[in-house]
């Protein structure tokens, strides 16, 4: 199979969907002739023009507000935020409008909106451009939250997000854009709520999200050398969440390590751990281990940033602690 970059898989999904459906447009900052701050819309302006690839001033609240209105009135907008951190400026249209409208209007309107942005540390982009805030939106019913970890998942999940009639928040990790992976040339989509077992194993279950899947797979290879056979599960979508695959794996291995780049306190790792303790308590052979980013702002200094998020070493240590 051909191998392409994560970012190219995303652009391919956008292009194919925009050709398929004329109601789709993209709105955001520097996404036109510039091709996006992370080149995530490169070449689309030339193909679809300024009416469907809309450059805006620095106005995140306006971008999302416009997109919500357009979605409610029949378009299928894709709103891009240059950095996931800027979502704070647009919280009201997301949380109080997008997430609620379909429910409050008794299902009389659809809200086919994709909010596409990036997240994560590792590029020395400092505290206001490196956060992993997707966990917040799992606490707002009405929003779907997607975290693709490979080029294949990125394309398949983005297509599903665009075709969904509800608001979807789509989070891409900055360090994944240039990663290559197998992506078929033929059409495919990946359903939401279906976790992917990225590596099968029998000794310990590692549930990892986004870029942490990569780290966990590397850790699993190291652990295999020492005779520990780790299973790595990528939920792919946090909302809806595929609990069954996680629980089934824990029933098999009896051990669980959860790795997520969000802050440990009040984040995704706690939610996942609670689910397993509630539903598979009798199958646990060791305390659940959670790895999240440290509870500090993301440091600018590369040497400090390195220890901020869970590393391959941290994952290996957590596994060994319970194996």
């Amino acid at each position: 199979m051909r191998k392409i970059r994560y970012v190219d898989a995303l652009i391919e999904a956008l292009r194919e969907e925009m050709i398929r459906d004329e109601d789709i447009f993209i709105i955001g900052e520097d996404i036109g002739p510039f091709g996006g701050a992370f080149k995530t819309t490169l070449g689309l302006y030339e193909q679809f023009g300024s009416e469907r690839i809309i450059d805006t001033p620095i106005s995140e609240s306006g971008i999302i507000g416009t997109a919500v209105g357009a979605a409610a009135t029949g378009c299928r907008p894709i709103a891009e935020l240059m950095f996931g951190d800027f979502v704070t400026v647009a919280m009201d249209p997301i949380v109080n409008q997008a997430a609620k409208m379909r429910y409050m209007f008794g299902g009389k309107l659809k809200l086919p909106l994709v909010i596409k942005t990036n997240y994560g540390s590792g590029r020395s982009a400092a505290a206001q451009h490196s956060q992993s805030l997707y966990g917040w939106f799992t606490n707002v019913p009405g929003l779907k939250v997607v975290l693709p970890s490979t080029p294949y998942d990125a394309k398949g999940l983005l297509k599903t997000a665009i075709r969904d009639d509800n608001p979807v928040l789509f989070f891409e990790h900055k360090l994944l854009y240039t990663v290559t992976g197998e992506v078929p040339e033929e059409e495919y989509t990946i359903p939401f709520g279906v976790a992917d077992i990225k590596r099968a194993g029998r000794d310990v279950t590692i549930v990892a999200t986004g870029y942490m899947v990569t780290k966990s797979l590397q850790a699993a290879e190291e652990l295999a050398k020492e005779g520990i056979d780790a299973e790595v599960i990528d939920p792919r979508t946090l909302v809806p969440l595929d609990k069954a695959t996680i629980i089934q794996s824990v029933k098999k291995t009896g051990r669980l390590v959860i790795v997520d780049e969000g802050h440990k306190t009040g984040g995704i790792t706690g939610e996942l751990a609670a689910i397993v303790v509630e539903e598979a308590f009798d199958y646990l052979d060791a305390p659940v281990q959670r790895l999240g980013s440290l509870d500090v702002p993301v440091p600018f200094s590369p040497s400090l940033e390195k220890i901020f998020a869970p590393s391959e070493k941290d994952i290996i240590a957590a596994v060994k602690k319970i194996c």
Partner: protein
Amino acid sequence: MATELIMPKLGLTMTEGTIVNWLKKEGENVTEGEPLVEILSDKSNFELEAPETGVLLKVFYQDGAVVPVVQVIAYIGQPGEKIEKVLAVPATTQDENTEKKEVPKIKISPRAKKLAQEQGIDYQVIIATGPDGRIIEGDVKKYLESMAKVKTTSTARKVAEDMGIAIEQVVGTGVSGRIYKEDVLKSIKEIPTKQEEALKEIPYTGIRKLVGDRLSSSKFSAPHVYFTVDVDMTRIIEAREKLKSLGAKTSLTDFIVLASARALTKYPNFNASLLEDKIFHHKQINIGVAVATEYGLIVPVVKNVQAKSLSQISMESVDLIERARTSRLQIEEYKGGTFTISNLGMAGIDNFTAIINPPEAAILAVSRVQKKPVFDEASEQFVAKPMMTITLSADHRVNDGWEAALFVTTIQKYLEEPLSLL
């Protein structure tokens, strides 16, 4: 070095013991084997003896203290000897709220705990290898394996291997059947080597397997306790002769069935079944009589014995036993028993114990009648009397020893005075 005296673990379920009374004071001389302290476990009282001669150097817990098992409670040594520092676990006294008792918490993973519970293992005896000293699933599995394994010394295993002997077949003479080298050597002549073929192979199937599996499950799940009494059969034999002369044929077993039924009416705990978490007392008294047939052991059941006369019991038994021998019993005729009698008197057995027929709660083993010298109080002389030994096997989960003793002696009294059966 001073010797530790620890709170002993007297049973799998014992987690702590109470110091009732120190029989020696700190500083007093003690001799090896001398009672030192009185301990109360969850089941009984006993005296802990001094493990060696010396001075009771230090006592950590006073009378009334509740102490976790294996905790050091005192030191014995030579006068003036220094003792190791002991971090005494704070003791609680019995008058305190029981919830406050300091029992060392055993760490065990939920997965391991579930497995231990399913296998009916007391996990307190399992060695933990998990993180932070926690018992994990693997530890429980290892324990189960070790239980299943033959207990042997490594030398014995080596010798057996060298000689080509199947070690599982060697009878161990050590503690809890541990096999020593001598046992292996002794068995060389008796046990066929691994390569040698058996004389004849009989498949373990059908009635053999049915009976075998049921009885092993009974023996291994129901704790059996045994109660034996000798019964003076003089009057029964007289009664039987009299009935015979009147044309009524009765067997000794018929009398025993009737006597058992009368005793069961008084002691319903033996006409009972333990199922799941409840003990059921049966309304009917249905007595099974074990019959040896060429097809194996069959236990036809005389139903509703409490409502039947001796002649009715006798007639039914003759018919049932005859049809059992010729394999013509209906299924319901050997089902529904609530108590069983196994009579091996005809085989010339002096005494034996029987395995309870599940889900019943007791079984009566009956041996032969033979004349024995019995001391007669009235004439102050030994006189020859026809004596018969009966042994009750009772399920200790359902009933206690005292009641079982009363029950079996009640049967004895009925048999010794058959008029009381009327």
